């Protein structure tokens, strides 16, 4: 269904943006996105490993941060540029994992392997980097994702230490909370994280199959979802976003054997509203460029039956959510399909009469 109406909300599929590409107009294993003050969307591409025949030539394909704008309708997206690449030098990353933009337009990109954050100006020029690990505490760390509050404090999840840590924007440690477990306030491989307009922190508790809500200093407030693959249940949640009305969006990897991934929507009190499964039945503008340029692609696509088309329009392991409050739309980072799927949250939707 392109349009879903439930509990007084309407989610209307708008369009998709992106295609697989190791550079330029497209993405490569995109895992996170953030929007800057001027509407620029920064996309972290994890990329894939490359062959290393010599020790100094360790490479990764497609790893970079893309800068794009996403218009209101199909075909209005623009590729602005890209920065960073695979590596451990200044401004480079091995496993890009998260991105936020602060009030000054500075861009912060986390590295899950090197456990550091690279900071760039809004054009992608490297400014500095700082460690997300306070000291060598003998533990294995993994900076899984990052979020930012209105005061430019940075929150991050550490998926291998099972905790949340809070830093100032220049990398000074402020606080941490959580430990491995399944009680309230504990985590099992936490991943996605976001901050709502009131400053509360939401964490996708990946292996506990839930999202937990905390105050800005780490006091547990609530939990969303129960484990499972049924309606309103969560299985391996990866990312979370909150809109200005307090509705909570959770991406997960629930797997029906063919199409792994859904986005669940809850209200602020934790009541389940609806699930999205992906609706990109029309190719994005960039994807269409690829198909139009390849006659065999065009011919083969016309031979594919409707059932086999489903794997194209459904989500495939989504790992990022971005709510664009200004335009009232949810942007799902549909990672394995190298694109965004965009849904408008429509106000005042008039339901057509049923006997049409």
């Amino acid at each position: 269904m392109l349009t879903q109406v439930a509990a007084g909300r309407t989610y209307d599929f708008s369009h998709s943006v992106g295609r697989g590409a190791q550079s330029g107009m497209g993405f490569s294993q995109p895992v996170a996105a953030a929007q800057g003050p001027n509407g620029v969307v920064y996309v972290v591409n994890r990329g894939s490993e490359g062959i290393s025949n010599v020790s100094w030539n360790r490479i990764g394909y497609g790893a970079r941060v893309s800068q794009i704008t996403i218009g209101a309708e199909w075909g209005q997206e623009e590729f602005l540029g890209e920065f960073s690449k695979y590596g451990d030098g200044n401004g480079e990353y091995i496993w890009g994992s998260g991105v936020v933009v602060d009030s000054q337009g500075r861009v912060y990109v986390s590295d899950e392997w090197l456990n550091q954050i690279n900071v760039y100006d809004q054009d992608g020029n490297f400014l500095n980097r700082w460690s997300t690990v306070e000291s060598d505490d003998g533990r294995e760390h993994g900076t899984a994702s990052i979020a930012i509050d209105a005061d430019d404090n940075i929150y991050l999840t550490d998926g291998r230490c099972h905790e949340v840590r809070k830093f100032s924007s220049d990398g000074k440690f402020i606080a941490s909370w959580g430990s491995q477990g399944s009680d309230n306030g504990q985590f099992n491989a936490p991943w996605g994280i976001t901050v709502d307009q009131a400053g509360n922190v939401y964490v996708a508790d990946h292996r506990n199959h839930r999202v937990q809500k905390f105050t800005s200093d780490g006091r547990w407030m609530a939990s969303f979802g129960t484990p499972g693959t049924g309606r309103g249940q969560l299985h391996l949640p990866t990312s979370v976003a909150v809109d200005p009305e307090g509705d909570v969006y959770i991406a997960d990897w629930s797997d029906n054997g063919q199409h792994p991934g859904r986005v669940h929507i809850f209200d602020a009190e934790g009541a389940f509203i609806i699930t999205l499964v992906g609706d990109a039945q029309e190719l994005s503008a960039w994807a269409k460029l690829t198909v139009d340029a390849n006659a065999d692609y065009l011919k083969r696509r016309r031979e594919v039956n409707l059932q086999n088309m489903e794997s194209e329009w459904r989500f495939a392991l989504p790992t990022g959510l971005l709510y664009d409050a200004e335009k009232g739309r949810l942007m799902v980072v549909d990672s394995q399909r190298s694109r965004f799927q965009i849904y408008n949250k429509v106000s005042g939707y008039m339901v057509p009469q049923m006997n049409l």
Partner: protein
Amino acid sequence: MANQDIALMAHLMRRAGFGATREELEALCEKGYDNVVEELLNPTEEPLDRFEMMRYQPWTWRPGTLPGMGAAEWLWWMVNTRRPLEEKMTLFWHHIFATGVSKVDHYDEIQNMITLFREQGMGNYKELLLGMAKNPAMIYWLDNNDNHAHAVNENWGRELLELFSMGVGNYTEVDVRECSRAFTGWTFEAKLPRGPLGRHDWRFEYRPDDHDNGEKTFLGESGNFNGDDIIDIVCQHPATAGFIARHLYNFFVADEAQVPAWQVIPPVDEDAIDALTDAFIESGYDIKATLRVLFTSDFFKNARFAKLKSPAEVVVGTLKLVGGAGFPAPGIGDLSRQPNYMGQDLLNPPSVEGWHTGAEWINSGSLMRRINFTADMVGDTSRPGVQSIVSRLRSQGDVGPEQFVDICLDLMGPLDVSSDTRQELLDHAVPGGSLNWSNEDAATERVSELLQLIVSLRDYQYA
């Protein structure tokens, strides 16, 4: 604990898995050999979670054909599984139903075949054959999508008989033709192209309008056969049981001649082949029952170090020995290429015949690759498995050079070496005198050097 018990358990785990650490071997010995065999045949540990790999290395979900790292997930699985025989059988079937990305061009489809081996590899052989006949990667690999009612393509039909069931000499060219006719219409649905949004799965499709419904005569039987009828007839043929038995012997017990020579070169141990053949037939083609006979037999227990390790066994076994490969860290793609550098490109065999095994694994280049890789691994004293060996040596206190060599050989297998080889190791160890732990770094360095020498031995290349 008797050293012979450890040695026998180590032999079982090298063959029915990819080796085990000394700590694991000691725990397994407490359970007893026959109980361990049953655990291997009926694993109760949970399978690995594929999403753990996707979590950190998302590109492995539907890996692209280049740069040839499609086996990364499988390598991680082989190293970390708690169901080792299941995974070893997966490798066994990949050797037989050898299907390669060089033609299929979709690692994910061959990964799906690997998953099928993992799930059905110890089940019923007839079911497995049927699964292969319907597997899209196999269908494309052997051109059955080009096998039409009015234009027969014999590739799948021929290899089914020659390489997957009976072996050369047990059927005629007419049988090949009739078999192929029975599989007309066994194909797969059109799928979306790989671009611009990534790979999509193939699905098997039977097209009745493209199936040859005429009368066929196959191996002396006549009827309007379809593909599953052919598989029934093939499985009932005694040559099939003998063929699979010889494959099992070659893979798990001792190196045989290469498959194309089986028609003219008799088995190494005819009685063993007969025992496995009988078990296969009596159990109704049950692989698990046949493996039970194999692993509890004297011919298996007496076959220590009678097989050259395959490159996959070298790489996975060494990684299990040295440890530290549990997390799918950066570099796993490169790691997955190591068997290829030694002559075994997983998911990309040289032909439908699979790899030539035994002594043919070794040439000057592949041997150097084996030694360089294993020496690098055991020379890394930060690895937990190496630290465990160092720790065990340290717990013995200062020891003389002979004891030093013997303990290391024991902990690295136990490894049987000739007296000449042992003397060579001693020639290296004696000048250093006793292994003295008053200087821990120096002692650790000496252990590391000796371990590197041991993995360079001819003896370490045998399982």
